[in-house]
């Protein structure tokens, strides 16, 4: 293959070493920053921040098990009562770098993720360096690397690196731009389609965020790009670009369609819930352009790529060597990105049309990208601009940014600390000095020029490194121990011990309610531990299921994106087959349980009253749960009217408040003036053995942030618990009592609040056991579960519907009774119901992610189209031949007739020409066109130049102080070239 030979040639020549340098420097820099922040093994911290601790790390641990063959990528019983995992894979794990977790033991998953982050950052730097060099071959390779590092280690990267799946965008964006350039310059569709497909597969979300940027970029380059851009008509170009992107999307169909179904299946609004945090004060936005600023509350976008880059990028609009339309276009693009924090529509444009839940301003990396893109091109062009003009421009831009810094310091004291202001000022000045030295020294030996260029690269890297260190220092990394201690030392071992053996089916979950952003317990821990659990947290949670869980009284997140086992009752534990319950406190006060395993800081209790995963449902089982009261919902579900009895006196005693009935029929309490707290006490009596519950769905702050520490609840005046709070806002289990009087006390300092009437409920244990025994008679037996299927046998004494405690998510299409396909129904709002006739039946069902087959078809079609595009590009190359675009542009700039009329010349007649640009590296460019003619034309022009043109010591011709490229005939190419970044062979 030609390209592979070309690549091999470039690798041998060392022309690509700058990519390795960019990669290595970025990795080293960010690695040092993390080490400085005491991330393990350089300290006791970890990167398990926020959702990284709650979700991504656990998903990666699960992915490791998938890669080791211990779990399925399509479906898992371990979470959400049965979870379609493919959409989660598509969003969180599809990056090729995620495969690295296969090589790490589970206990080192956080370190694997650090490695993945570093590799993504390094690859981002490498890709950006490659793009920069291709865009401005006048510039030096080492400078391209110098500019690429601030992009890869930008404020966005540092602040959002824990959102590990977004970091793929760092390398995908430059790759997309390079592919776009290929379309612009050579009309090739294949690269753009292929990269778009890869990007959509790797992270469709970030791909969507990048598309508006890419479209703007293509439009700007097409309308205002230099002579190397082929202009074949705007309409035709638009169709080509659209087609390439369309093929890319089609290629990713195998993940996109299942993800679409997963999102549609979710309870969350597909367009997000959080308010759009715009407009921002301009001063805030300006402050965030300076390196090192950090917004702990993420209330402003992370835009900075160091401070020195600002100087370089600001030169771009004023460089007349670049076409005006392109300058205006990129200026407009910058303005558009800035407007994303000012205008809701633009904000949504750069967020896939969705309002992010937490961590807003996700487009920040594109601002950093634009800054380095413009900055690098500006510096490359500045050295070709007349010296006095360049100096004036550089000075004015520097003064502008110093003035901006003064203004920012005045208005944004909280963001711009004295240290940051000083480092920003120093960064600006050093950047200006570096740019001045790299572009202003025009009569110096090549070696000195190369060193000044390297100096600028070092300044850029150090500047962004200092900024990154400051940003990282402001972040609050959690302890490394959070990965291994959840929430006690023995918790994970206890949870793992409850994982069902191969083929068996039962569920287990923990009773520890404090999740605290995953610092104590991850809502997805069962994915890692292997037990079949209810806890789950992701934006792709099943909406139907979570609504049903909410109706049954389970604790729910305000957006219903996570639900836990917290809020269970004897009935729901029986219904959902929760055989084991794990606690951190000894002595579980719950009926129907017995201690089976014990560790110093965790115990496992067996629930003796469970139903199998399937059983013949009572005829009265509702298809839809009661939405108003979970006690009623459970009573209807089990056909046990009045099971949750009120064991208390009708009116509680109150101190410190007036008691009233609210318009909604609840008890309304208004604190009396001068009282510090309100105490409401229910006096109750338990007959026989009863499990006691309270529920307060409508009480203030139930299920909402912050919602902690507002109420204190006591049973018999002891063991106060914080209820309701954000992690415990459904039914609360007070424990069991047998034939005794007891009191329930609620204490708060709130001025006014309401409590449901019949706040306290008692469930008769004997009644529950009898019901469970009755339903178990027609339960599923010989149950066999695999990663994606379930089967069992049932003896039905009458025709009816088998209730399966399996969420009725899309994908359970293949349900068979005695080998015959049946259509499942939905029972209890969210669970599968399978109609059976009376008799002995074998039920089998298997899961296939919805949309996967059609998506796979789309992908196949996309790949075929991609192959077609490849062949088309190959044919196109044969017909017109690649142009000596840069050479042509050079000739046009020098006033010649250009090579417009140059006929296509077969490759065999090409003439090997070496372009040597002092202090810069000429780039390889195939010269299929009559390069010999062009070279001869240029040589004749140079010969016709006045003799007064100065000549550099090495013989380089200088025009207005600017070294012109030197063409070396084939015989000369054998001679080594001195400057390390000036070697190039053009064939």
């Amino acid at each position, binding site marked *: 293959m030609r390209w592979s030979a070309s690549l091999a040639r470039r690798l041998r020549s060392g022309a690509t070493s700058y990519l390795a340098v960019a990669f290595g420097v970025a990795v080293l820099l960010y690695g040092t920053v993390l080490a400085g922040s005491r991330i393990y093994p350089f300290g006791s911290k970890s990167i398990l921040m926020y959702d990284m601790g709650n979700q991504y790390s656990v998903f990666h641990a699960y992915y490791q098990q998938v890669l080791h063959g211990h779990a399925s990528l399509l479906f898992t019983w371990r979470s959400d009562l049965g979870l379609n995992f493919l959409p989660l894979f598509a969003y969180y794990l599809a990056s090729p770098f995620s495969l690295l977790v296969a090589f790490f033991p589970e206990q080192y998953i956080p370190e694997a993720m650090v490695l993945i982050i570093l590799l993504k950052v390094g690859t981002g730097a490498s890709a950006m360096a490659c793009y920069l060099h291709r865009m401005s071959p006048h510039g030096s390779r080492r400078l391209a690397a110098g500019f690429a590092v601030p992009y890869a280690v930008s404020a966005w990267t540092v602040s959002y690196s824990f959102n590990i799946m977004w970091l793929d965008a760092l390398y995908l964006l430059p790759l997309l731009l390079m592919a776009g350039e290929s379309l612009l310059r050579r009309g090739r569709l294949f690269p753009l389609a292929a990269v778009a497909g890869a990007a959509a597969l790797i992270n469709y979300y970030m791909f969507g965020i990048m598309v508006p940027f890419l479209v703007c970029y293509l439009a700007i380059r097409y309308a205002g790009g230099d002579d190397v851009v082929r202009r074949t008509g705007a309409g035709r170009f638009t169709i080509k670009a659209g087609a390439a992107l369309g093929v890319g999307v089609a290629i990713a169909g195998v993940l996109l369609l299942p993800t679409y179904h997963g999102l549609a299946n979710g309870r969350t609004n597909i367009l997000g819930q959080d308010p759009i945090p715009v407009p921002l004060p301009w001063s805030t936005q300006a402050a965030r352009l300076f390196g090192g600023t950090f917004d702990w509350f993420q209330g402003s976008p992370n835009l900075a790529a160091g401070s020195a880059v600002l100087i370089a990028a600001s030169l771009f609009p004023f460089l007349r060597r670049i076409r005006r339309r392109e300058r205006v276009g990129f200026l407009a693009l910058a303005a558009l990105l800035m407007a994303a924090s000012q205008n809701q529509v633009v904000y949504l444009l750069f967020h896939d049309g969705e309002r992010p839940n937490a961590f807003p301003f996700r487009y920040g990396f594109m601002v950093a990208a634009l800054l380095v893109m413009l900055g690098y091109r500006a510096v490359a062009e500045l050295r070709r601009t007349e*010296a*006095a003009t360049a*100096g004036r421009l*550089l*000075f004015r831009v*520097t*003064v502008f940014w*110093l*003035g901006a*810094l*003064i203004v920012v*310091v*005045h208005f944004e004291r909280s963001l711009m600390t*004295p*240290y940051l*202001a*000083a*480092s920003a*000022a*120093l960064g*600006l*000045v*050093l950047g*200006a*000095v570096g740019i*001045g*030295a790299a572009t*202003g*020294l*025009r*009569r*110096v030996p090549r070696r*000195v020029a190369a060193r000044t260029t390297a100096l600028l690269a070092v300044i850029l890297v150090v500047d962004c490194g200092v900024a990154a260190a400051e940003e990282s220092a402001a972040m609050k990394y959690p302890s490394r121990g959070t990965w291994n201690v959840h929430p006690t030392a023995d918790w994970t071992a206890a949870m793992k011990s409850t994982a069902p053996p191969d083929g068996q089916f039962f569920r287990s979950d923990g009773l520890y309610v404090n999740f605290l952003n995953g610092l104590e317990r991850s809502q997805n821990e069962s994915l890692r531990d292997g037990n079949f659990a209810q806890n789950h947290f992701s934006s792709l949670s099943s909406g139907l299921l979570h609504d049903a869980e909410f109706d049954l009284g389970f604790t729910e997140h305000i957006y219903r994106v996570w639900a836990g086992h917290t809020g269970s009752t004897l009935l729901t534990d029986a219904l959902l087959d929760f055989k084991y319950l794990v606690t951190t406190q000894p002595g579980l006060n719950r009926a129907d349980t017995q201690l089976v395993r014990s560790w110093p800081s965790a115990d496992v209790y067996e629930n003796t009253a469970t139903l199998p995963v399937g059983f013949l449902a009572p005829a009265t089982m509702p298809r839809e749960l009661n939405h108003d009261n979970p006690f009623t919902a459970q009573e209807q579900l089990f056909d046990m009217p009045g099971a949750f009895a009120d064991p208390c006196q009708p009116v509680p005693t109150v101190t410190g408040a007036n008691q009233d009935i609210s318009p909604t029929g609840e008890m309304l309490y208004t604190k009396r003036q001068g009282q510090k707290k309100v105490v409401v006490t229910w006096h109750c009596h338990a007959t026989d053995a009863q499990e006691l519950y309270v529920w307060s769905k409508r009480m203030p702050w139930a299920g909402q942030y912050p919602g902690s520490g507002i109420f204190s609840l006591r049973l018999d005046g002891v063991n106060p618990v914080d209820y309701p709070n954000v992690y415990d806002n459904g039914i609360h289990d007070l424990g069991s009592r047998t034939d005794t009087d007891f009191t329930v006390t609620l204490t708060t300092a709130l001025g006014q609040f309401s409590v449901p009437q019949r706040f306290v409920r008692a469930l008769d244990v004997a009644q529950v056991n009898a019901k469970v025994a009755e339903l178990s008679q027609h339960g599923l037996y010989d149950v066999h579960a695999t990663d994606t299927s379930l089967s069992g046998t049932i003896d039905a004494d009458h025709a009816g519907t088998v209730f399966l405690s399996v969420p009725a998510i899309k994908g359970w299409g293949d349900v068979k009774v005695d080998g015959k396909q049946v259509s499942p129904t939905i029972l209890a709002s969210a669970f599968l119901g399978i109609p059976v006739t009376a008799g002995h039946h074998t039920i089998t069902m298997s899961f296939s992610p919805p949309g996967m087959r059609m998506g796979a078809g789309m992908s196949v079609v996309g790949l075929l189209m991609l192959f077609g595009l490849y062949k088309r590009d190959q044919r196109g190359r044969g017909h017109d031949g690649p142009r000596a675009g840069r050479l042509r542009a050079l000739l046009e700039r020098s006033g010649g007739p250009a090579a417009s009329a140059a006929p296509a010349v077969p490759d065999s007649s090409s003439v090997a020409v070496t372009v040597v640009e002092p202090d810069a590296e000429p780039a390889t460019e195939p010269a299929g066109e009559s390069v010999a003619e062009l070279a001869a034309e240029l040589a004749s022009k140079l010969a016709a130049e006045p003799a007064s043109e100065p000549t550099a010591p090495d013989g380089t011709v200088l025009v207005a102080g600017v070294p012109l490229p030197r063409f070396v005939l084939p015989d000369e190419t054998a001679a080594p070239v001195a400057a390390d970044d000036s070697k190039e062979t053009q064939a």
Partner: protein
Amino acid sequence: VSSAVELPVPVPAAPTFGERAEQWLLGLPGRVRALPYFAPLAVVAVTFAVNAGIAVMLWGRLGYGAFDLTIFDQAVRNYAQFHLPYVPVKGAYAGTGVDFLQLGDHFSPVNALAAPLYWIWPDVRMLLLLQAALYAAASGVVWSYAKDALGRVPAHFVGVAFGLSWGIQEATLVGYHELDWAVLVVPLALRRLQRGRPGQALAVACSLFLVKEEMGLIVAVFGLLLWLRGERRLAVIAAVAGVVWSAIAITVLVPRIGGMHNQYWSYNSLGANPKQAALHVVEHPLSTVHLLVSTSAKQDLLLWLLVVSAGACLLSPIALLAVPPLLLRMLSDTATYSEPKFHYNAPLMGILLIAGVDGVAKVMRWLDGMEEQSPGQPGELARLFLRTWLAAITAVTVIGLQYHAYDALSAAASPAQKSFRAAAKTAVAMIPKDATVEAESAIAVPLSARTRNLILAEPGKPHGSRWVVLGKASPIDWPWASGSQVEKARRWYLANGYVTRFSRDGVYVLYRTGPVPAGIDNVWGQRPQ
């Protein structure tokens, strides 16, 4: 025949008085600019006006504390009366008695030079004006240095950047100190060196011996600069004299005069004494280096020192002059030494800016050499470099103004603070002349001129003064950390023979009617109170 018509020749009308006045006024700026030394004088005037203005504003807000302004006031007041420089305020605090000599605190006889000012107006504010004047004079010297190195216009920027630099502002915010003399002396010595007078330069530098005991180390490093200029003999003299003098002053003079040994030893993380500290530095060089940047305040300080000259100071050996005082502070366990606050950084401003000027000049020469420019005619790149540097130091100055003087002066006073100030002024007026007083730090400063002696009241350590002035909402938070401490102290005084003479808005004037309560350290002894 044509006859020539003689047209009347217009006679210019004599300008009216108004026109003459207008022309005079219009030409005034030009004539002023043409005055000899106009530019440096303008820089000097701006520096003086700004720093004196800050001082006056702060004085009106009771923004100065008795430590250290009252210490110097008492010393200079005694000098002015041809007495030894007793500083009762410090002596009582240190427990050495009211006869404590300021020279035993720090060996700085240079304070005696301020005595004549008290003959004119014996008020603490004279020290503040002296401080502003010293800074202004130093800015003139820095201007001269920059003019010869970079040119006239750049010198304006450098002069103003020095006069308004953050270190100078911070020093202004805490009032006069003996180090203010070093702010002037060091640039003067460097200027003499620049003019090719190494002998004079060394002589001027040696005057630092009278400023403070550790200043000898700067003189020693000054010897290094002399060495680099080929003045080997003077260099050795400076190095030896500087080290020997500091050693004598620190180990003999100050302890002998003050009667306190190791009172400023704050290097316990290195060792219990200089020998142990030196050994620690040799044995643990890495941890010693880490100590230099071990806190965020130290990092802040180093960065802000660097940006004063936009980093250009690193290109000149002159910056080495800043190393000894900086090392002494950064290695110290005392946190206040290593913050970008207080007066400690004022002498470094001149050093670093002059080093920056020197560094920039070097770079310009290098650039011109590279670009083959003729000497004395800076090329485009050199001019660009210079302009960028000037813009940077100007920006840093403005940013520094915002973080330091602006923040200190613009902090909106709450109604309670305003009431406190009014009440404090009333309280000050109540104290009879020459009375003995223990006063809250901020109120002690204006009392210093009127009361015969003044003692700072330290929580839990009353000194038996006749009068006590306490304040709850003082802008100075030392030594009183909180209002509850004030309240606790007030109750103690009331329970031990004091009565309230004045109480308003958190200011209390207490008066002792009887003898000094038993059990307390009556620093006044049998002196009349």
